[in-house]
């Protein structure tokens, strides 16, 4: 539980942090696309009897760079690129899972998240890569913001937009991979979007929206993990339902004021 809690806190910080940049770019579907590719990484890890998280990080990072390359050459729209990679990742997963003798309990925990399966090595990798993600965003914050708001003007101001966009998709890939243990592959996209959209209802600036989204994600993860532990509920589903509940409350509060 302690390991899941610490990993959950790290994810509650980095998932909405990255999610804010994806949502304003209308590119949030990349989280779902990469999560389907992450499933292939888990299957490869189980097939090779190696640590699935490491394989997943490598596979999703490679896929994210490929997605960005295809999107940035403008010959295929970003939406179409994601529409190709999402079923592609799922198809590869299905084939690989059939080779590992179908769905077992371990694979099931990756799909929907579990608080009992976070190994010590998973925790250290999550904390290490999570902190790296956090500091990368802080370091490149203004450039990420400029490239998200106005790509052309960012280029004219001398920013290497291609490099910044690649950083964003790689950080997304890392976040998706790290989140699958606690939140689950099928639900991580929700944690990168729902607290962000909720924060945007209240934020009077982009930074304020980020702070709100972090607050909402941390609340959902902390309360969700306690509920999952004491009520024996699946962690990912509980956290996502709580995030939706917070969104509903904020939307109601906004409407009534």
């Amino acid at each position, binding site marked *: 539980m302690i390991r899941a809690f610490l990993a959950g806190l790290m994810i509650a910080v980095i998932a909405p942090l990255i999610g804010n940049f994806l949502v304003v770019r209308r590119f949030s579907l990349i989280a779902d696309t990469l999560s389907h590719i992450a499933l292939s990484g888990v299957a490869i890890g189980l097939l090779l009897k190696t640590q699935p998280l490491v394989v997943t990080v490598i596979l999703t990072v490679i896929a994210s760079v490929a997605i960005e390359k295809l999107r940035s050459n403008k010959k295929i729209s970003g939406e179409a690129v994601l529409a190709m990679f999402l079923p592609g990742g799922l198809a590869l997963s299905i084939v690989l899972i059939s080779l590992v003798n179908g769905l077992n309990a371990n694979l099931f925990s990756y799909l929907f998240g579990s608080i009992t399966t976070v190994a010590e090595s998973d925790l250290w990798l999550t904390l290490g890569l999570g902190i790296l993600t956090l500091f990368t965003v802080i370091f490149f914050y203004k450039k990420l913001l400029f490239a*998200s708001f106005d790509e*052309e003007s960012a280029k004219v101001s001398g920013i290497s937009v291609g490099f910044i966009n690649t950083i964003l998709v790689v950080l997304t890939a890392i976040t998706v991979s790290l989140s699958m243990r606690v939140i689950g592959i099928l639900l991580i996209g929700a944690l990168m979007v729902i607290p962000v959209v909720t924060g945007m209802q209240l934020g009077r600036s982009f930074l304020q929206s980020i702070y709100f989204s972090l607050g909402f994600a941390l609340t959902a993860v902390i309360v969700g993990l306690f509920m999952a532990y004491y009520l024996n509920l699946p962690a990912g589903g509980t956290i996502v339902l709580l995030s939706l509940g917070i969104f509903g409350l904020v939307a109601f509060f906004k409407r009534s004021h």
Partner: protein
Amino acid sequence: MKDDAIVKISDVSFRYNGEPAISNINLEIKRGEFLGIIGPNGSGKTTLLKIMLGLLKPQKGYVQLFGQDINSFKDWSKIGYVPQKAGSDVTNFPISVEEVVGMGGADHETITNSLVKVEMAEHRKRLFRELSGGQQQRVFIARALAPKPELLILDEPTVGVDINSQTKFYQLLRDLNRNLKLTLALVSHDIDVVAHEVGEIACINCKLVCHGKPKDILKSNFMEKLYGKELRFVLHGH
């Protein structure tokens, strides 16, 4: 190259999928000038602007910025760019005015000074999406002014801006040109308005049709070449 030419476009051509967008264009922008680049829709104005900004590479010819070949030019802070609108959908972007001005790396004091220059300082905490079209353009100018550029390039800056705001907007540009000695290049399809605001006009219709003082060009038959014989000017004052 003369010392006072800060942009030199030499024999530049560009084709989209084999179709010429601009052909053999030669043009100089001199220090302190307020140049209007005009032409009908699809005439290649925006293509020329993108080549000047290094966003497109010409297939023929070359561009020099501040005496340097554009391919080796690094000092982009000398050039401020004011786009027609933000690249993203601003209605879903919760960004404040001061964040827009500061996104290029400007500090608090520079943001304040830039907003004061465009008379938008009192709006710094407001959401960008809540501003009118004219106010948003002023914020883009403030962002472009933050790194203290020597040349400001504006792409159709008054599209979607009401006529009163346009008048104030052009007054602001004239002030920047005169008081801050900023060189301005403005791309527009609105010959009528631009001709009364700028010091020089370059008319583009795939080729450079004319280049000179607005009064000389309006008197000549260049406008017929540019817009066709049916063109009739209805001049409105500003």
